């Protein structure tokens, strides 16, 4: 009985109905809000760690109020310059994604061969990559060593060979395999090419087993590319319509879709940095993550546009409230996505590993864009809009 009471008490605390009001009140009082730019509350002016240390002991154990106040202080004091962080990042991202190192097109668009295998010994990735490069004369070879647990061989690897630009497809009428001719005049059919890759693998990893082979000829590339671009354009158009339908305000919708584009550029930059190429699956994940990134933008916009001051305080505290919820949303998503990355690694599936990685990039880009770009911009808009009204 007493244990139950104790539990109830702790719920009352964590639920925030009690203590949070008291801690949030200084920040949200109307007097402070009027002149929030110049004469801020002492709590907000202080640096973030100080804010957390001033939280009463009962609340200290909970992360949210700390984060809440940190964000509230941040927005209240710096909302006019906060967007500089993502803006600078954006310029850097555009450079990374499109100039150097630049995002690469993967096998789906350029054609190539993917082989995965298991082995009882660890796979020497560098040695294997060198062997495959030597055997095929192709420079773009990716080797990822893997490890798995449970039944079956413990180690394994993935080899991806992307056809170089000067290799072109030669259909044959009688021998039913496409033929590749390099610019040098040396020629290989796709099967011979595959065979060379397999031989190189067997040489370095004699016990390679459970071999999965996938090859994509470049002929399909342009079709894929057109489809992918169509998908992306439609996704953005439909999302914009959907967001507008819910909020019925043009500028906020534009801000949200703009944030989604920033997210996209951020993900592309991270992909370029981590050498993850654009394939059909990664493009799909990009779209999904853009759709997902809108989630936090919607949480933010709902708090800012659909809530009133009398309900939840001024726009700074409303944005901060949205941020605490949003960050935990990102937290759970991140956890689920780390497992996708892990399952890709465990099943020696390069595509799944890349999918997991791009999802994580999406969440990370979203955190920065939503809470450091979208939030300050939206706060500015709401303030202007409110004063005009």
């Amino acid at each position: 009985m007493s244990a139950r009471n104790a539990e109830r008490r702790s719920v009352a605390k964590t639920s925030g109905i009690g203590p949070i009001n008291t801690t949030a009140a200084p920040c949200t009082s109307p007097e402070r809000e009027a002149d929030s730019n110049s004469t801020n509350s002492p709590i907000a002016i202080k640096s973030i760690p100080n804010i957390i240390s001033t939280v009463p002991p009962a609340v200290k154990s909970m992360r949210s109020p700390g984060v809440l106040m940190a964000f509230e202080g941040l927005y209240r004091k710096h909302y006019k310059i906060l967007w500089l962080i993502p803006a600078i990042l954006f310029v850097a991202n555009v450079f990374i994604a499109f100039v150097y190192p630049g995002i690469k097109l993967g096998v789906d668009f350029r054609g190539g061969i993917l082989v995965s295998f298991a082995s009882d010994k660890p796979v020497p990735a560098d040695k294997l990559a060198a062997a495959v490069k030597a055997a095929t004369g192709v420079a773009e070879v990716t080797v990822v060593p893997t490890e798995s647990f449970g039944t079956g061989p413990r180690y394994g690897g993935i080899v991806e060979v992307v056809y170089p630009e000067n290799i072109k497809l030669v259909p044959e009428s009688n021998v039913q395999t496409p033929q590749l001719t390099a610019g040098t005049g040396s020629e290989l059919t796709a099967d011979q090419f595959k065979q060379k890759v397999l031989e190189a693998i067997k040489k370095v990893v004699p016990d390679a087993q459970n071999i999965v082979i996938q090859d994509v000829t470049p002929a399909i590339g342009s079709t894929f590319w057109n489809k992918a671009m169509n998908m992306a354009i439609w996704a953005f158009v439909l999302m914009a319509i959907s967001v507008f339908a819910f909020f019925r305000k043009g500028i906020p919708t534009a801000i949200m879709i703009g944030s989604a584009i920033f997210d996209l550029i951020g993900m592309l930059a991270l992909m370029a940095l981590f050498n993850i190429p654009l394939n059909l699956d990664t493009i799909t994940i990009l779209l999904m993550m853009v759709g997902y990134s809108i989630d936090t933008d919607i949480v933010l916009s709902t708090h800012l546009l659909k809530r009133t001051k009398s309900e939840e305080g001024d726009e700074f505290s409303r944005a901060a409230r949205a941020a605490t919820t949003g960050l935990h949303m990102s937290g759970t998503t991140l956890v689920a996505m780390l497992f996708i990355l892990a399952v890709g690694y465990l099943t020696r599936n390069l595509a799944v590993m890349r999918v997991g990685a791009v999802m994580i990039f999406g969440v990370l880009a979203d955190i920065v864009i939503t809470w450091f770009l979208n939030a300050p911009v939206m706060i500015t808009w709401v303030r202007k809009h409110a004063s005009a009204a």
Partner: protein
Amino acid sequence: MHPLLKSWRVRLLIISVLIAALLIVFRGVQFGIDFKGGSVLIFQFDRPLTPQEMQQAVLIIEKRLNWTGLSSVRVRGWGDQQVVIELSTDNPQEIQRIKESVLRQGKFEAVVDQKVVLTGKDIAAVKPPIITPAEIGYTWKLPFVLTPEGVKRFYTGVHGKCTPDGRCAYVFMYIDRPVGKVLLIPKDIAQEENVLTTIPELKAVEQAPADQRIPMVEFLKNAGLKKWFIVDRNFNPQVLLELNAPVILAPEENYLVPFLQEHNIPYTLVPKQPGESWIWAATNLRSVVHLTPDVTNVTPEHASNELVITGWAKNYEDAKQKTETLRIILESGALPAGLQLVSERRIPAKYGEQAFYTFLITIFLAMIAVSIYVATRYKDLRIAVPISITVFSEIVMIFGFAALIGWRIDIPSMIGIIASTGTGVDDQIVITDEVLHGGAKREEKERETGEKKSIWKKIRRAFFIVWATASALIMAMLPVLFSGIPTLVGFALTTIVGVLVGVLITRPAFGEIIRYVVSRK
């Protein structure tokens, strides 16, 4: 009765999960080749097809594959130009056989004096092949029966093709005749094959009787070529630009390939098989029949209704394979366009099984991890447990839906399940946060007037976010779903189903549960 069970939202959740569980148990969830092992081949047609043509093409390919006797083959048209074939085998020989039977457009044509007298439509049935041992290897015969119209057409086509002095015309039978193409014959091949016989083996030419020796030109004239050239190193390829037609050439002419690629001229390399005629191979000639007066000079009612394609093979197996492939092509009819193989993926069964268990364990662990995260965030099991149960019931319902529509779960589908439930937890967090913290200021005033009303209001407001986010994610995934790209549709489908199950079934119930939990405090 527990008060929660009185809510229709909670009842809907329980009933849905039960139905899903029953579907999973009794209908069973099907798994794709990612988890069972097998192969995926993607073929591309030379041109976009109309929907009717695509439907027809899929039917023809299915027919061809059924005759190869392989179990569980799945053929799907994808967009207007591609066909995806899923096979339950990863055996290279079987895959090679499949490729051979699919990669032919299969347009049968019998040509006499440059006129088409028969097409594939005139064939009523193909009889079992006759394979007989020859001096070296085996010869084979594949007889086929003509339709009544075919008989008529053939009769008019060959009537009077024997001159009174007994010189008769030949019937050239092609599968995929190179109509409108340009043939570049290497000089040495042209010299070696300037005289051919009615069988493709060159060795036979010397022994053939005089009336069976046919000049190469006869062969080329009937092949429907736009033009042919006898080519050596001095050949000036500029002329090919004016002709603007696909080119057929031999591997020793590959010095022309860079030129063809540069000017985007489609080309086909036909290798020379030792001991066999290159001209036969390059023009896709299958059989040459020397007409006799008893065929050409009969009255209509005695017109023959049976023709034979003959050939030679190294051994019995080879002969069987060749006749079988030919029979399948003749019987299934022609595809609307030529096609080529563009992607191939092979998954060993053992790998698939391991991948399957790894995925199941991963989903399970991911659920536990998300639950732990939520539990540490709210420090209250009465909130954390409903969130975990919601996630679990969502996964059950997605699988149940897959069982219902007979969807095959592949790796992208599994990823979609993890992604949609992982992002689905977000909604639960939104609802919970809204109920616990939302409208803090107003709440103070409303404290006395009754908390329940205020909780309801908060849940309703949370659902604005839930609906808006769900709608955005579905909008992002709809174009992927309709792209029809086979490796992506599964992902889009499970993501969308996951989101829909969430907003329609689990989240309303979760809102009810959270209301109950909070109002009891």
